[in-house]
């Protein structure tokens, strides 16, 4: 019997060594350890042994059982490990294949730059004001101190709806609306569409965008105008931007100025971008004309302020190197998806 146990043990060890599939392992378990298994069959013969031999054989039989059980467990673990490994290796992906994308949309370049400008001015305590695009002549010209014979009023330049109603030619009428409806202190920018009778080409559009700014308070100075616009320009073009303010004329400001930045391509030497001038015009500005303040019921002896205005399209075109304004209104996805 002892030899029989020894033989079973050796046979089991040998057979387990060649197991490859979990099903084979299960077959072996049944074959040796099952109710009708070989070891069980031997243990059933124990009854026929002399009582003196039983304990010793019993120990051997248990040893054999534990031996086989351990080996089956080991073999099982090895099989499982192998199985996981091969499953993972079968699942290997080519990680260089492009991913599945959920496409999100693109902001229009005009919005991108406008948002940037809004953020800069909001940071300086400004609010965003709005006004109608179809506007009274009174707000677009008269209240802004524009002389009756000013060329901007000419129907060649301005779209009229009625004698006293037009498509606003500038965002400046928003100044008037804000000053008439709000007491100082006022700090606003007013972005919006404006209209001028220019035929469509690479650098002109009958519809474009302006950003107007207005600050009114006690004791506002031209130095404040310079500081505010200098800060704005440096936020856009970087701290090392070189700026200059030069005299100009607008009917609704006095003194008036234009702000230039030194050309960032040629650094002042003169190139195609700055048309050889070495400077690029950024915006027009000035101290609000006392007539304009009076027209809005604000006492120019008590309050002063400044206003400024700039064209959004030109800023956008420079920001992204766009050479044709028409692209901004054609809305071709091949263009828009670049932003």
């Amino acid at each position, binding site marked *: 019997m002892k030899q029989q146990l020894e033989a079973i043990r050796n046979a089991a060890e040998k057979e387990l060594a060649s197991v490859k599939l979990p099903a084979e392992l299960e077959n072996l378990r049944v074959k040796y350890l099952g109710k009708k298994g070989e070891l069980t069959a031997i243990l059933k013969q124990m009854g026929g042994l002399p009582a003196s031999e039983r304990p010793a054989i019993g120990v051997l039989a248990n040893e054999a059982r534990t031996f086989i059980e351990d080996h089956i467990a080991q073999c099982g673990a090895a099989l499982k490990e192998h199985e996981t490994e091969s499953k993972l290796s079968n699942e290997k992906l080519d990680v260089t294949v492009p991913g599945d994308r959920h496409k999100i*949309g693109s902001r229009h370049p005009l919005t991108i730059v406008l948002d940037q400008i809004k953020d800069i001015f909001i940071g300086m305590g400004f609010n965003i004001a709005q006004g109608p695009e179809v506007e009274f002549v009174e707000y677009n010209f008269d209240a802004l101190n524009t002389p009756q014979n000013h060329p901007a009023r000419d129907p060649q330049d301005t779209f009229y709806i009625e004698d006293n109603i037009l498509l606003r030619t500038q965002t400046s009428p928003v100044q008037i609306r804000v000053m008439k409806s709000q007491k100082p202190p006022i700090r606003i920018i007013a972005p919006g569409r404006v209209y001028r*009778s220019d035929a469509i080409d690479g650098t002109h559009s009958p519809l474009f965008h302006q950003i107007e700014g207005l600050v009114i308070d006690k004791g506002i100075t031209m130095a404040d105008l310079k500081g505010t616009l200098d800060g704005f320009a440096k936020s856009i073009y970087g701290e090392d931007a070189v700026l200059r303010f030069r005299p100009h004329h607008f009917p609704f400001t006095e003194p008036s100025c234009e702000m230039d930045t030194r050309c960032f391509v040629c650094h002042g030497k003169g190139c195609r971008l700055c048309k050889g001038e070495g400077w690029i015009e950024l915006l027009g500005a000035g101290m609000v004309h006392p007539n304009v303040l009076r027209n809005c019921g604000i006492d120019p002896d008590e309050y002063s302020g400044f206003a400024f205005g700039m064209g959004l399209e030109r800023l956008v075109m420079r920001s992204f190197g766009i050479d044709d304004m028409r692209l901004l209104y054609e*809305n071709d996805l091949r263009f828009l998806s670049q932003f």
Partner: protein
Amino acid sequence: MNLSMKWLHDYVDIKTEMHDFSEAMTMSGSKVESFGSAGDEIQKVVVGKILSVEKHPDADKLVICSVDVAESEPIQIVTGATNVFEGALVPVALDGSLLPGGKKIKKGKLRGVVSNGMLCSLGELSLCKNDFPYAIEDGIFIIEEECRPGQDIRELTGLDDTVVEFEITPNRPDCLSVLGLAREVAVTYNKKLTMPDAGVEGGEGKTSDFVNAVVHDPKLCTRYTARAVRNVKIGPSPLWMRQRLRSAGVRPINNIVDITNFVMLEYGQPMHAFDYRFINGGTINVRTAHAGETITTLDGVKRALDEKMLVIADNEKPVAVAGVMGGEYSGIMNDTNTIVFESAMFDPTSVRLTAKRLGMRTEASSRYEKGLDAQNTVPALDRACRLVELLNAGDVCGEYIDVDNSDSTPRTVPFDADWINRFLGTDIDRQFMIDALRRLDFKVENDVVTVPSYRADVEQKPDIAEEVARIYGYNAIPTTMLGGAATRGGLTPAQQFNKSVSQTLLALGYTEVTTYTFISPKYYDKIRMPSDSPLRNSVKILNPLGEDTGIMRTTTLPSMLETLARNYSNRNLAARLFEIGTVYMPKGKGELPLELSKIALGSYGGGEDFYKIKGDVEELFETFGVNTDLCEYKACGDDPSFHPGRCAAILFNGIVVGTIGEIHPEVQANYGIDTRVYAAVIDLAMLMQNAVSERHYTPLPKYPSTARDIAVTCDDAIPVMELEKAMKSAAGKVIEKIELFDVYRGRQIAEGKKSVAFSVVMRAADRTLTDDEADSAVSKVLKALEALGATLRS
């Protein structure tokens, strides 16, 4: 305004490099646009003296000239011209020279004889007979000026000059003159301004012996001055004057006409010269034209006048259109003997409208339009007459006519140095301010500034501050940050909402577009808008660029479809676009239209269908917390822009806020799109009104939910929304949500029927629902469905 540096030097003595000049003038308020020399086009052309002229051995029509050009020895040039002779001074284009128009001259051989350059005619130097009246046009220019061989020809023609182009702003019409700019230069460089000689002596006779002037409408002509000149000798003006005129781009004509042009450029005051013979009755009437009157102007065109136009007329007929152009027959001719110079101030608006109605904007009219100085008329007249004397062109009469209705009271403005410093944020010395103003021709006495008559733009304290600031230098003003009461910056709720809507649509995959707000009325036809639709009533532009941009849109749908069509024709296979755009709803005459913002979505290609765009709209609404119970999609078969079976009106609380659907195939075809197109338009304000601005947290459920699936068959025509509504109201609060998960038509389902499957999720907040409770709720739901003819599928 173009300024000749040579001319400028007649009045201001400055020596400066052109870039520095440009920078200095720009910073003191006269912006330099560009500068350059007209003579740059001419290189290596010099004066030559012909030493000999010999016949060409092999050509009858050519001669060989030996020319002294001040080189070590004379050069040989072959020419076909017949007017050359020994001793003549001629322009010589040397080997390697450049002529106007980019023409290059190189040495070569003419019929075997070497020619080292070319002798030039007037035309080859871009000149004409008026520049050098003694020369002939069809031959070599034989120079009669004082000059020496080898001298640069540009010195002779005045082209060795630099011309500066200034941008003159409308407030400074005084700078549209050489003297005006010279004054600015003098102030900028702190130099003396030397005024031209206007000290006319005058002689026998009075102007009033010849003519008298009657101004019938003093409002339109505030000052009329005139002076007669007798014994006029018409001839060419001197070289220096011709050169000055050339530098300003004006063609020399004769001494009298050149004087009027010269004074206009110098003083900024348009001048006119009449031939006395043609002032019938000796009376100059400044009056408006009579109906039916005509005039043939100097350019030879016969023009009809109307009663709004101011004219200069004799006793019979108009002889000039005031401030615009003279009449043809009253102009200066070669046999003119007595002339009358006119120097007048006409109303800017009247001149502008007259010039416009006649379609002839002239140098004179564009100056009057900008507003001139009535007090400048006499100095200009004096200068013109003085020039007549200096040029010995006639005998100036001893006195002149002056009909003066202008207000010559000088304007005064208080001078307050402290206020100026407070206003500018500067600390400028008071004396500096006074000096600067005085240099600008202002008088400063006892804290009062007296403004020169030509500075109509200076009226108030800030105007004085600007004069001080620009001379002090804008860049010298400090930069300070805003002080004072702080304002709290930020977006308004509506602006924030607008931004959030954009962000959501971007996240949903829609790209933002910006379209023109004016459209063609034909766009309404393209979207099949009914002819009686109130939306066709649009704000009309009186003077549009063209019909395509003639009206302000009342709907953004055509703009979106136009944009989709452009993308389609550009072969973009799929598109998802959005615009938050404005529409303009007319309100009536004299009133501004209502401007509303609309969200427009549009898509095609890439597996788009009705439910995709609807899903995106639902997602948008959910993002903003629109109450789904109040939001309804109502089938809409009568919007002609959309597919009648695939269109819904979107309602919030029973009010239509938008439309969604598949675009009608005919509309699609109108836009040339060969694939299905989907669009939605939603009113932004209505969406904001129905959005939840403040969110409140709902505690997470403590008890599990119970779900039951129900599949029913019903008439195909019953909208799913009705089934859902019935189910919800039948079972009440216990129902947490009902989700549709299948709609099926086809095999095993009778014709005209459909199978609809829902998952009904039930939950109680305070306990786990028992099976009985769930069953009872489901049976109520089924009963409600049965009432709609929907029976449980077995």
